[in-house]
């Protein structure tokens, strides 16, 4: 089958049982997406399919033929970090870092789509990304910073 990940087309042979997460990590060497629970409860495996955050562990790779996949490896410009990545570093929005790529994939989609006006809205949208180190306040701070910076550059603040 062929799969387009971060703009690159890959030809791979996979059993139908293989999850998108295992395909990315074990077959394409894209190990940024993490396996926490492998049953849809933690969000560490969050990637985008057709631009929308989904759980790669409950997605079958075969079902992604002709779909556009984006992983943490694909969100930054070639010469640096995505603003959300930078904000996560500045705000110490992680300890062990295991949940971080999933957090960032959700956060970037949230900021793109809007709906991060209040802390409650951020918390609700991000509730599918569990952080065992409980870095939640700092994650929210990072998201707020990028939100406010976006507002300034777009002249709405």
């Amino acid at each position, binding site marked *: 089958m062929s799969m387009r990940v971060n703009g690159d087309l890959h030809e791979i042979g996979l059993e*139908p049982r293989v999850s998108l997460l295992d395909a990315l990590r074990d077959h394409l060497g894209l190990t940024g997406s993490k396996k926490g629970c492998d049953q849809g409860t933690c969000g560490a495996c969050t990637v985008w399919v057709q631009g929308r955050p989904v759980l790669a562990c409950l997605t079958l790779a075969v079902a992604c033929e002709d779909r556009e996949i984006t992983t943490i490896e694909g969100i930054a410009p070639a010469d640096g970090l995505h603003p959300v990545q930078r904000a996560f570093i500045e705000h110490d929005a992680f300890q062990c870092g295991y949940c971080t790529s999933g957090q960032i994939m959700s956060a970037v989609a949230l900021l793109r789509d809007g709906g991060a006006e209040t802390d409650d809205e951020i918390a609700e949208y991000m509730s*599918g990304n569990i952080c065992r180190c409980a870095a939640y306040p700092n994650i929210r701070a990072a998201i707020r910073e990028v939100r406010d910076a976006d507002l300034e550059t777009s002249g709405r603040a």
Partner: protein
Amino acid sequence: MRPLGYTRVSTVDTAVAAVGADATSTFLAGGTTEVDLIRLGVSRPDVLVDINSLPLKEIAYTNDGGLRIGALARMSDVARSPEVTYNFPALSQSLLLGASEQLRNMASMGGNLCQRTRCAYFRDAVSPCNKREPGTGCSALDGLNRGHAVLGTSEQCIATHPSDAGVAMVAFDAIVHTVGPSGARSIPIDDFYLLPGASPDVEHPLEHGELIVGIEVPPAPSARRSLYLKFRDRQSYEFALVSVAAAIEVREGRVADVRLALGGVGTKPWRARRAEVALTGGPATPQAFANAAAHELEPASPRRYNAFKVPMAQRAMVRALTRAMNGGA
């Protein structure tokens, strides 16, 4: 590991034919239930028929002001569509209070209605469980049953149905449209969910290969001020201990129309008909709400760890009715 076949179909007829012709095959929509249960060894299909390319994603008003929702519309799209948020807020809220953003982006409405119970004995693939392996017994009866049902139970199974959207759908008298090997039909949602009785493995009247193509929600005057309340162990991303969908219309102090359904307490999304009958035509007072709620829970058969659900459900009903009467959320 057993091999698993996969095929993607692009028309309703080929989907029905593919699954209908093969007793070991099943439909795959968002996969958030099916892939999980395959990995756990609870579901063991030989072939997955991927229906995600079927043109069943519409969310639109019907001519009479009701809703028509395609079986493959995603939970997140339905929750945020203006048609739903404006005229059926309880449905939108029930979807947004379920699962997580990622899961809602994946999960389809048809799959949501068909999702399986979260009973831990059902999901562990080894404990005796009549729903998974008919005739093996029910481990929950005398086991850890804090999350289990108190209404509609049988000695064979006390598992709750976990769908939140199903609760709102039951309150609104939704109709499930299907196409199967023997043709098309429409099933009132209350008949779409079966009580466990002596055969808890059979949850729906669907024949093998029968595909849900859409869900219709008829118009209801009170629906615009409906609401959905969900009570659970943590604030977000958790199944309900108790939930309530409620809509009420009061004229001159009397209850003219009331819709009430419960989640988390029944073996199926539970239309609270006893309470509705008790309320209709009577006064819309807190005491009347409390009496009706108590009447609904009268047939409850609580077990060792879930008895708290009986008073909790009653208080939740009173709160939901009071809020709905005062103009919604």
